[in-house]
């Protein structure tokens, strides 16, 4: 009976493609929109992900997320270094500073000050130059997206594209000169501002003068030291907040989830997409069954059991569901691939594929169930009605 089911399904190419397109659209919207959402949310903690070396991030206890900087006194660094179980502890400055560009315009940048000696917390991927070049006088490293876009120099010829910053170019940070010694690849942040790396001591000169300037203390636990126990010890000793990398990511993620309109806006889009996708695909598949009701009646009259017809409809639903899901996910992945160098956030983890797979499966099951009920209730005597 399987080949009969498949032939019935594919016999009318127009309707068959209609069902496939409906499911493809549903699958696409259930994959692409959440992928943008996940990508966007991942950007909220992308800076934390990029700093891979430390086990623990220590900060002021009132910090709510990565960009919510509440500077600490530098003496806190020495207090943390003195706690047992700490292998090393390094300072990090993180702040938003205005950079004056070649054309006189100002651009707010994320300035990261790394420990002068170890440069811990620096970018993992250097495209040009090396991290050690930061030890040169007035040295700064900029991220490639910033160098190409927001920090780029105007072209000497009018109407031409801006020229990306190169090694040797200079910037003005709060009346201080910064010379570019490297170009790094960093994960885009939520605000997508250019990122400028420099040493901690130089960052202090760029930053407005404040009594407290230390943003984070990056801590490495000694070998065999349980990081969670160390976190408790740091909290108890200093009164500061301390998190593992994952814990700090979750703190940031939860802040954005709770305090921004992003989840609800995307939630509405995804829900609408799901409802529209379900309506289109479900309705098309149901209509397909309705239009074939007479054919099912003929099969029933000839002795086909409800179980046989049920298998046929399920096979049809599974097939169109699989094709629609594959195409939808494929298109979403293609979209993500095409946008990989753009500002658009897009992340497609396997969990999302499972989610959209379950969504499409749900649509198909609902459509198939409604259709099956119709076929089960069908009187085979329909075949004698003209």
């Amino acid at each position, binding site marked *: 009976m399987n*080949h009969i089911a498949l*032939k019935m399904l594919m016999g*009318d190419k127009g309707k068959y493609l209609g069902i496939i397109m409906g499911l493809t659209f549903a699958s696409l919207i259930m994959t692409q929109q959440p992928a943008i959402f996940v990508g966007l949310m991942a950007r909220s903690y992308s800076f934390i992900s990029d700093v891979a070396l430390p086990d623990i991030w220590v900060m002021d206890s009132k910090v709510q997320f990565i960009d919510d900087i509440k500077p600490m006194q530098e003496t806190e660094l020495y207090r943390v270094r003195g706690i047992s179980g700490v292998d090393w502890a390094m300072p990090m400055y993180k702040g938003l500073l205005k950079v004056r560009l070649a054309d006189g315009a100002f651009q707010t940048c994320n300035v990261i000050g790394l420990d002068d000696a170890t440069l811990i917390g620096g970018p993992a991927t250097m495209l040009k130059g090396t991290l050690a070049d930061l030890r040169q006088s007035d040295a700064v490293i900029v991220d490639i997206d910033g160098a190409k876009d927001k920090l780029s120099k105007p072209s000497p010829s009018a109407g031409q594209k801006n020229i990306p910053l190169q090694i040797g170019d200079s910037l003005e940070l709060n009346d201080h000169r910064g010379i570019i010694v490297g170009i790094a690849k960093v994960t885009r942040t939520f605000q997508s501002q250019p990122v400028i790396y420099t040493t901690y001591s130089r960052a202090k000169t760029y930053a407005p003068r404040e009594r407290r300037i230390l943003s984070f203390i990056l801590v490495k636990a000694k070998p065999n030291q349980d990081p969670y126990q160390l976190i408790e010890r740091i909290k108890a000793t200093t009164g500061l907040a301390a998190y593992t990398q994952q814990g700090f990511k979750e703190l940031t993620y939860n802040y954005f989830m709770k305090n921004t309109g992003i989840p609800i806006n995307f939630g509405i889009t995804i829900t609408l997409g799901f409802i529209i996708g379900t309506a289109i695909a479900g309705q098309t598949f149901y209509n397909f069954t309705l239009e074939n009701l007479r054919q099912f009646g003929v099969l029933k*009259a000839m*002795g086909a059991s409800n179980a046989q017809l049920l298998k046929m409809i399920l096979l049809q639903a599974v097939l169109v569901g699989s094709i629609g899901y594959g195409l939808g996910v494929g298109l979403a992945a293609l979209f993500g691939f095409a946008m990989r160098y753009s500002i658009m956030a897009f992340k497609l983890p396997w969990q999302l594929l499972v989610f959209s797979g379950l969504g499409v499966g749900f649509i198909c099951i609902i459509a198939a169930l409604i259709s099956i009920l119709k076929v089960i209730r069908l009187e085979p005597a329909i*075949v004698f009605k003209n």
Partner: protein
Amino acid sequence: MNSAISCQNIIKTYNTDGQIVTALNGINVEIGLGELMMLVGPSGCGKTTLISIIAGILNQDSGQCLLFGEDFQALTNKEQLRFRAHNIGFVFQAYNLLPALNAIENVSVPLIINGTKRAIAEQKAKEILEQMGLSERMKALPAQLSGGQQQRVAIARALVHSPRLIVCDEPTSALDHKSGHIIMTLLKSIALKHDRALVIVTHDARIFNFADRIAEMDDGHIIKISTTTATETN
């Protein structure tokens, strides 16, 4: 004459928008093995309801209908399906061929429903289509066939699993005289054997001479049964 179908006092009503309509009102009819019986009468007289009950695709409200000695209504659902799949062949007015399947595939459907392997079913389908004179059109879809050819495919489908009862609903109504004659000749020569019965619902007076007996119905009753030699009243 051994009885293929024996219906006693069949009553069937429909509930249409709260109104009870009696479609069959105490039908008694016997159809013998090797017999071709035609059911004739005006629209709405109950012909279709009667063949639906005879074919086991509709249950009567009361009365008893024995098909080859089996009380169909006493069978379980599963048994009814199996009985129908093995013993009854259908020929419909609108052919009711599956439009996405070609002639061979359409004809093989009853065998596949019975659990026959596809290759064997299609081989049998080819053989019967050759008998029907459709060797050149075996791969054609229904839409690519003429009305007469479609009806021949439908007859092949009704016969491929060697059923003992063949029910036909207006098999010639959509055909011209010549095609109708060919169809009836085929039906009578191939379908009708000593151990089978053929019931045809028709308005087409051009084919009455193919019948062994004609049951004339009106208002849910069989009012007259004619043979070539005599007429009986019910």
